[in-house]
C-alpha cells in the first residue's frame, strides 16, 4: 500500500473546506495555518518525535466533518459527566457549542472574568483574543496544530482580568458521531495576579472511531496562577491528538494534571515556556491503558529565565497489549541560573504484551542549576504483593490494590471531588474493585 498516497489523501480530506471566508474573524491567521498545513507532511515513525507512535491506523480512516443537523444529546444523557460543584460549564458536541447544555455564559457579568466562546469573542473582535490566539501554539512546524488553527471557528475563551479569582471552568467535549474529526480550541488568558482553574474533559457517547485534534493555549501573567486538569476518556477506537502550549510570566504558576484512559492512539504534546523569572510549574500525568491503546505524552519544559522551578511526575499503567510512550524534555537555557527542575517517570507493565518506551531528556546550558530526572519501568514490587498476602489478601486482590493505589495517587490530586470520584470508579473497574471506601 502506498503510504505517502494514503497520508496525502488523509490530509487533503482533513483540510477540505477549511479555507476561511475573508470577512470571518482571524482569517489571516487561519489562511496562514492552512498554507502551513498543506506544506507539511503527516508525521511517520521516521520522524524522531513520532518514532514510537505510528499514526498509520489514523491515516486509513475516512474522516468527515461532523454533521450539523444531528440532534444534541439530552441533559440526562450527559448527567454522568457533569461536575456538580463546578457551576461554570461549557459543553461542545462534536466540536459544536451547545448553549442548552452549558451553564449561562458569564460574559460581561463581571469585568474581571470573561467566559465565552471564541466565536462570540471573534465576532466582537475582542482585542485580548486577537493578541493571544495562535501565538503560543505555533503552526509553522506542527501539522496538527496547523490543521486545528485552519479550522478555528469556535472554542472556549477564558479571560481572568487583573487580580480576578476566577474559580473553576469545566469544558466538556462530547463525541456523539462516528468517523468524524473535531478540532477543539481553548484559549485562557490569566492576567496579572489572576487565579483560574480549567477542566478540559473529553467524553464519548458512542463507541465508534473518531478523531479529536485539540489545541489549548494558556497565557499566564505575572503572579497569576492557573491550574489545568485534563481528563481524556474517549472511546477505545478514538484518536486523540492534543497540543497544549503555555507561557508563564514572572512569578506565575501553572499546574497541569492530565489523566488519559487511552483510546486507540492518544498523543499529548505539552509545552511550557518560562517568560520571566521565578515561575513554578507542576506537571502530573497518568496514562492508564489497556487493550491495543497507545498513549503518548511528549512534554517540553523550557526554562528560559532564572529562578524557575518545575516538578513533573508521569505514571503509566500498561495492561493488555497496550503501549505507553513518554518523552519528557527539560531545557535549561543559557542564563537560566538557579533553575530547580525534577522529573519522574514511573511505569508499571501488567501483562507480558504491554510495553513502554520512555525517554527523559535533559538539556542544560546553565551551570548553577539543580536538575534531576528518574525513570523506572517494571512490575509491581514482589515484596509489596507479599506483604498484602501476609495480611490475608489473595494475590490477585493484592495486585489490584497496589495498581489502584499507584494510579489513584495522581487522580487524587485533582481538586474537584466529583471528578476524582468518577475517575476512581473507573480505576476500580479496571482493578477488580466495586466500592470506593
Amino acid at each position: 500500500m502506498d503510504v505517502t498516497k494514503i497520508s496525502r489523501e488523509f490530509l487533503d480530506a482533513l483540510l477540505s473546506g477549511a479555507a476561511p471566508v475573508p470577512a470571518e474573524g482571524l482569517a489571516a491567521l487561519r489562511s496562514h495555518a492552512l498554507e502551513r498545513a498543506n506544506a507539511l507532511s503527516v508525521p511517520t515513525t521516521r520522524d524522531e518525535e513520532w518514532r514510537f507512535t505510528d499514526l498509520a491506523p489514523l491515516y486509513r480512516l475516512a474522516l468527515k466533518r461532523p454533521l450539523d443537523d444531528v440532534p444534541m444529546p439530552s441533559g440526562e444523557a450527559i448527567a454522568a459527566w457533569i461536575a456538580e460543584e463546578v457551576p461554570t460549564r461549557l459543553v461542545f458536541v462534536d466540536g459544536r457549542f451547545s448553549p442548552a447544555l452549558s451553564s449561562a455564559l458569564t460574559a460581561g457579568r463581571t469585568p474581571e472574568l470573561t467566559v465565552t466562546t471564541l466565536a462570540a469573542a471573534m465576532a466582537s473582535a475582542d482585542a485580548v483574543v486577537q493578541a493571544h490566539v495562535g501565538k503560543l501554539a505555533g503552526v509553522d512546524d506542527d501539522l496538527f496544530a496547523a490543521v486545528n488553527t485552519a479550522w478555528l471557528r469556535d472554542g472556549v475563551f477564558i479571560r481572568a482580568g487583573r487580580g480576578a479569582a476566577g474559580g473553576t471552568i469545566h469544558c466538556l467535549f462530547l463525541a456523539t458521531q462516528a468517523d468524524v474529526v473535531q478540532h477543539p480550541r481553548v484559549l485562557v488568558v490569566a492576567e496579572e495576579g489572576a487565579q483560574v482553574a480549567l477542566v478540559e474533559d473529553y467524553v464519548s457517547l458512542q463507541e465508534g472511531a473518531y478523531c479529536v485534534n485539540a489545541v489549548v493555549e494558556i497565557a499566564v501573567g505575572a503572579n497569576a496562577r492557573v491550574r489545568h486538569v485534563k481528563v481524556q476518556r474517549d472511546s477505545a477506537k478514538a484518536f486523540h491528538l492534543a497540543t497544549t502550549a503555555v507561557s508563564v510570566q514572572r512569578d506565575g504558576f501553572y499546574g497541569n494534571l492530565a489523566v488519559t484512559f487511552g483510546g486507540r492512539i492518544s498523543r499529548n504534546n505539552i509545552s511550557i515556556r518560562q517568560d520571566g523569572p521565578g515561575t513554578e510549574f507542576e506537571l502530573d500525568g497518568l496514562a492508564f491503558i489497556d487493550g491495543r491503546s497507545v498513549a503518548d505524552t511528549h512534554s517540553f519544559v523550557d526554562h528560559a529565565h532564572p529562578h524557575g522551578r518545575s516538578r513533573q511526575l508521569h505514571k503509566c499503567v500498561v495492561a493488555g497489549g497496550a503501549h505507553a510512550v513518554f518523552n519528557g524534555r527539560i531545557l535549561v537555557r543559557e542564563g537560566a541560573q538557579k533553575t530547580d527542575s525534577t522529573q519522574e517517570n514511573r511505569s508499571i507493565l501488567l501483562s507480558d504484551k504491554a510495553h513502554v518506551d520512555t525517554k527523559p531528556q535533559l538539556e542544560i546550558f546553565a551551570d548553577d542549576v539543580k536538575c534531576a530526572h528518574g525513570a523506572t519501568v517494571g512490575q509491581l514490587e514482589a515484596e509489596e504483593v507479599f506483604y498484602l498476602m501476609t495480611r490475608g489478601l489473595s494475590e490477585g486482590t493484592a495486585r489490584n490494590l497496589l495498581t489502584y493505589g499507584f494510579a489513584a495517587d495522581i487522580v487524587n490530586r485533582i481538586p474537584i471531588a466529583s471528578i476524582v470520584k468518577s475517575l476512581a470508579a473507573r480505576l476500580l473497574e479496571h482493578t477488580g474493585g466495586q466500592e470506593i471506601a
Partner: protein
Amino acid sequence: MSAVLQNLIDQPYKHGFVTDIEADVVAKGLDESVIRLISHKKNEPDWLLEFRLAAYRHWLTMQEPTWPNVKYPAVDFQDISYYSAPKPKKKLASMDEVDPELLRTFEKLGVPMHEQAALAGVAVDVIFDSVSVATTYKKKLADVGVIFCSFSEAVHEHPELVRKYLGTVVPTSDNFYAALNSAVFTDGSFCFIPKGVKCPMELSTYFRINTQESGQFERTLIIAEEGASVSYLEGCTAPRFDTNQLHAAVVELVALDNASIKYSTVQNWYAGDENGVGGIYNFVTKRGLCKGVHSKISWTQVETGSAITWKYPSCVLLGDHSVGEFYSVALTNHMQQADTGTKMVHVGKNTRSTIISKGISAGRSNNSYRGLVKIGPKAEGARNFSQCDSMLIGETCGANTFPYIQVQNNTAKVEHEASTSKIGEDQLFYFASRGIDAEEAVSMIINGFVKDVFTQLPMEFAVEAGRLLGLKLEGSVG
C-alpha cells in the same frame, strides 16, 4: 568567576602537535580500486577482500548520521588518503632529547620512568639493558595459549578465527562509519583467550610498552572462549599526537559461556585549540556480544580528548544470565563536543546491566549522554540500573541527557536516574579555608565525582586518569 580562575582559563593546550609523518601514501579518494589496493598491499585472502567490498558497496547507499548532538563541517570522504604504511617513528637516543613539556606532563600524570621513555619514543634497548619487557610479556602470553597480535598478523596466522568472528557483532551494514571502517580498515588488534584461560596479566601492561600506530581506521576483535577472562586497555593517558582528523574505529568483543571481558579505554587525543580549530573526529563503533550463558562484558571509558566524540560502547546480552556494564567519564573543555553513551540490549533471560556515566563540561563545550536500554520480549527477569550525572563548569557549556528506555517484558525492571550539579564558589571557598588552592580543590571535587568509574579502571591507570582530568581542566574552573 574570580580573577585567579579567569587567569587559569586562558592557558593554552600544552602539548602541541607533531606533524612529521612520512609514509607510503595512497592518493586521496575512495573507490573499489583503493580497497583492492589496500587488500593487496596487506596480502589479504580473498574472503577478506570480499568482506571489504561488500561493506563498501553498502556504505555507498548509506547516509552520514545527523542525529548526534554535535556540529561540525561535513567530512569530504574523497579527500582522505585511505592507506599509509606506518613508518617507524624516529627513535630518540636518550631522555634528554625528549620535549621537556612532554616530560612535565608525564611527571604530572605520574608515569613510571621507563614507561615514560617508551611512550616518548626513546629506543627501548636504550632503556633496558638486555631483555625487552615486551618480549617477556609476549612469551608469558604464548605459554598459556593467549593469542595477542596485530590484526594483519591474525589474518595470516589465524584466519579461521578471524573469519569466524569478524563482523558478527558489528555487521558491515551496521552504521555509516562501521561500514566505512569495514571497507578500509588497515590494522588493529586481535586477541583470543582460549577455553578456561584467565589471561595472566592485564593486557594493558603489555600495551603500554608496545604502543603501536594502527592508523585512523582501527579494527579490534577480542574473543573469550568458554570460561576465559581478560582485561584489555586501549589508549593511554599520555597525549596522543595524530595528524588524521577522522577516526572511525570498530571494536568487536565476543564472550562465550562463563567468559568475561573487561575493556577499558583512556582517550586523550588532540582536541583542537580553545577556539575549536583542529582536533580529531572520533567516530567509533564498539560493541560486545555476550553470546554465552553467564558471560560478562564490561566497558570502562575515560574520554578526555578529540574535538568530537561519537561513541556508544554497547552490550548485546544474548546469553541467559549475562551481564553488561558501562562505566564512563566524558570530559569536554573549550569547544569540544561529545555525544557518547551506551546501548544495553537485553535478549536473554535474567540478563543484567549497569550504566554509570559521568559527564563533565567546561569552557564552551557540549557534552551529551545518549543511551538505550532495550528489554526484548523474551528477556524475562532482566534488570537495568542507569545513573547519568553531569557536572557543568562555567556558564557557557552544555550538558544533555538522552536516555531511551524501551521495555517489552513485564518481568523486567529498569531504573534510570540523572542529576546535574556544578562546582560552587562555596565549595571552593571551603577548600580555600582549609588551605587548598582552587586548582587542587577542583581536582579533588572532580575525583570524588568520577570515583565510581575510576575504581573500575586497572589500578595504575586509575591514578593517572585522575591526574589527567586535573590536567585537562587546568584553567577552566570558576
